[in-house]
């Protein structure tokens, strides 16, 4: 029974439970619902919840645990594998999965029969040819132990699938019987089902915590693996980045950090003046009508997907900068450069700076402006000498948030900054960033478990820590500032 069908069945049982529970409540009260503590529909609801929720929770955990269990059992069948060699295990498992899905297909299309499978010897029959016949191409002949592992894999998957269906249905049935047996005139069905619902609400809000733990756990775990294979000292202090998928690669983060920093600084040099001045103009000078018209337009810039900016950098800004600036000045002839990515990213970040600064400038009390204007200062003097100093911490917070945004940005730099890791001052040269390298190390057919792939997790962890740090500082500054005037 597939998971989809199983969930539909559980749902159907639960809905039946609602109707039956409701009916039973009314009949327990002798047809007079007023005698019940709770409305009949709450009795039905409690049966529904007790039937459906535990069954679904069980199903989710089963589905998560099943692959891990199967993998442990199956890899035990394959000789020549060290217990802690994760890469070899993964590779062997991929083979087994492929053969098993091929066998599934072969049986589904009638090229093989289930009964034959049990007596089949991989060496005796042309298994590879048979599987190729149903559209599963294998790189090499199937060895006997891979075949046996695949057979075990299928058998385990089949029996565990049935086991899951039985267990889930049993859980639903137990929940149903239990909840139904509790129905009586005095049963506080509303309180019970309400605390159940509240528990579910708490569960939903814990998803965010789980996500954070998932991120930290997966990053730290794989980074740990990486540092077992590659010295941490070289990673943090080496100035060369040249991954070689044959081994002997040099994976220093410094050129990547330099590229990231350089691009972000250019982006901020574009975005901070424009964003800040726009915010000042909009909040201090612009008429109401102008403001309601222009502010959403600037915010459109934040709503445009980054892939659009990436394409813009690739096909418009890059060639333009190369033909008009880099080549005439003899600074290089690459259309992807730090400058390209920086300028485009700056455009993207403008609304982050402007709308946050706008809020903060608006939060400066009017009395401070009035005081300054009353002393004879011009509006611009008021802004420069009174409003901005008062808003400064908030503005700094906004700039830090924009910086964290720029550091974590991926698509613009993937398409605009280039792929060569370099420590150079020339802004018209192609350089690369942390995010670009995460993408390039994790896409493509590379062996999972080699330092060249795992380095992406170390890069990811570095990125996560940097952006998180910037955010925490920025939020703390903004919050501290806001408290002053409220």
């Amino acid at each position: 029974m597939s998971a989809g069908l199983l969930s539909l069945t559980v749902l159907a049982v639960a809905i039946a439970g609602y109707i039956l529970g409701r009916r039973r409540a009314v009949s327990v009260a002798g047809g007079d619902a007023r005698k019940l503590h709770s409305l009949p529909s709450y009795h039905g609801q409690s049966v529904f919840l007790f039937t459906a929720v535990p069954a679904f929770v069980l199903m989710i955990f089963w589905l998560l645990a099943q692959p891990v269990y199967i993998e442990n059992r199956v890899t035990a069948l394959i000789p020549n594998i060290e217990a802690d060699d994760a890469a070899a295990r993964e590779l062997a498992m991929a083979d087994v999965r492929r053969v098993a899905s091929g066998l599934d297909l072969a049986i589904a299309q009638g090229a093989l029969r289930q009964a034959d499978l049990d007596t089949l010897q991989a060496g005796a029959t042309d298994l590879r040819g048979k599987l190729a016949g149903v559209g599963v191409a294998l790189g090499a002949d199937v060895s006997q132990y891979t075949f046996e592992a695949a057979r075990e894999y299928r058998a385990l998957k089949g029996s565990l699938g049935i086991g899951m269906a039985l267990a889930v249905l049993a859980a639903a049935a137990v929940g149903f019987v239990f909840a139904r047996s509790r129905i009586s005139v005095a049963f506080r069905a509303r309180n019970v089902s309400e605390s159940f619902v509240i528990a579910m609400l708490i569960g939903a809000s814990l998803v965010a915590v789980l996500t954070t733990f998932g991120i930290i756990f997966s990053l730290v775990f794989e980074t740990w693996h990486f540092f077992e294979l590659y010295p941490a000292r070289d990673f943090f202090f080496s100035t060369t980045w040249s991954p070689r998928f044959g081994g002997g690669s040099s994976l220093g983060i410094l050129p990547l950090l330099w590229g990231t920093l350089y691009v972000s600084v250019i982006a901020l040099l574009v975005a901070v003046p424009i964003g800040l001045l726009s915010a000042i103009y909009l909040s201090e000078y612009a008429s109401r009508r102008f403001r309601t018209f222009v502010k959403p337009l600037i915010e459109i810039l934040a709503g445009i997907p980054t892939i659009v900016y990436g394409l813009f950098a690739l096909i418009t800004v890059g060639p333009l900068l190369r033909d008009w600036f880099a080549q005439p000045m003899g600074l290089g002839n690459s259309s992807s450069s730090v400058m390209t990515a920086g300028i485009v990213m700056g455009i993207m970040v403008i609304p982050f700076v402007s709308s946050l600064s706008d809020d903060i400038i608006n939060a400066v009390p009017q009395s401070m402006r009035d005081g300054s204007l009353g002393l004879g200062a011009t509006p611009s003097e008021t802004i420069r000498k009174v409003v901005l100093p008062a808003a400064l911490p908030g503005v700094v917070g906004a700039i830090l948030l924009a910086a964290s945004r720029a550091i974590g940005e991926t698509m613009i730099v993937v398409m605009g900054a280039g792929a060569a890791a370099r420590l150079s001052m020339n802004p018209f040269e192609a350089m690369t960033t942390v995010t670009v390298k995460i993408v390039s190390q994790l896409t493509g057919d590379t062996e999972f478990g080699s330092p060249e792939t795992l380095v992406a997790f170390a890069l990811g962890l570095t990125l996560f820590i940097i952006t998180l740090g910037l955010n925490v500082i920025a939020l703390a500054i903004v919050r501290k500032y806001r408290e002053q005037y409220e």
Partner: protein
Amino acid sequence: MTDVSGGPAALPVSKPRRGSLLTQDALTRRRNAAEARFKACGAVAITLSMLALVWLLFSIISIGSPAFRQTFLTIPIELPEAKLDKSGTRDPAAMAKVTTVGYAAVIQAALTKAIKEKGISTDGLTPKDIAGIVSLEAPAQLRNHVLANPDLVGQTIDFEILANGRVDGFFKGRVTMESARLDSNIKPGQLVLAQQLVEAGIMAQRFNWGFITFPDASDQRPEAAGLGVAIIGSFYMMIVVLVLSLPIGVAASVYLEEFAPKNRLTDLIEVNIANLAAVPSIVFGILGLAVFINFAGLPQSAPIVGGLVLTLMTLPRIIIPARAALKSVPPSIRDAALGVGASRLQSVFHHVLPLAAPGILTGMIIGLAQALGETAPLLLIGMVAFVRDYPGMPIDGFFDPASALPVQVFSWTVRGDPGFVERASGAIIVLLVFLLVMNAVAIILRRRFERRW
């Protein structure tokens, strides 16, 4: 003021002003100029950001809009039974033995004949050159058409075939005679022939539905590449995101806003949500790769994985506006409900939530729009793979390999043929139209149902 003896003369004599209200002195002029300069700086900043927006949209739209038009040849094609169905049974299984090479020959013959009938000279062009103005994809399309309608064999049909990408580019101004001279894929003679075919009415440009419905095509045939698989993949992911994040997001915001006691756990959750909203999207991609693909064993390139990753990414961005919407419902509503004997849960679900629904929905739609445009995390979970088969129907289709709109844009930009740049920009236009519609719906919802208390 009691001492009158001094009189006004005792007060410090202020010097007369260096001017009057009618003539400005130097300092005032300087200050006024600084004022004007400062104001102009602000205006320039706004103009610059507006210009950036206009420039961005203009460049994408002007490069991308030709992708919606495509050059086609309409010629009568004879489908000889001797070549396409030797058995004569019209059995598609038997006819499938004829590969696209056989159909290419059929098209070539038909094209040569059509050119001859119109009296167009083909001097200096080999038969291969003449066939070269037709897309490499055309034989496959003809083959599929014939296999779907086996009875056509033996007849002569009017069939619309795609012109080669370079020929198409010639009519769109991307390819010129000069560039064709340097290009090994096209000869100027072929372009001259194409021009004559247009004048003869065989070749024409028209709106290209295939751009929206076709699957991706390989490197050599940009003219046949379409967004079909990518749109379906994106749509499936949005379904997953909607189905998961709407209940979870609403439940979480209801709990945090209405029920959560002030304690450590609540603080932890709130800090988490605030920080998750600012985590770079690529980190969610790493999470998806490590947890959903490597740990849970879900398939690569599948919409379900993309949907799960985008759900985790979108959740905080939904919870924050949803909480704001719940907060804006005045406490008097809750008090009134509690006052007539409702439980807290009843007051929330029967009264507060319906009143906050427009706000929550608006935030939801904007969150979905952001998820739709997200690219980086999808790259890591294998959505860049070249997928030509349409995914199946839901729910099984969620596990089939598919592409996604923004990822399709990215994978087209890394292809060699310049025709793909136009396709990529065209795909962005499609993406932007979707985003525009979603945001417009959100704005209309807000305008129509927003209530000021």
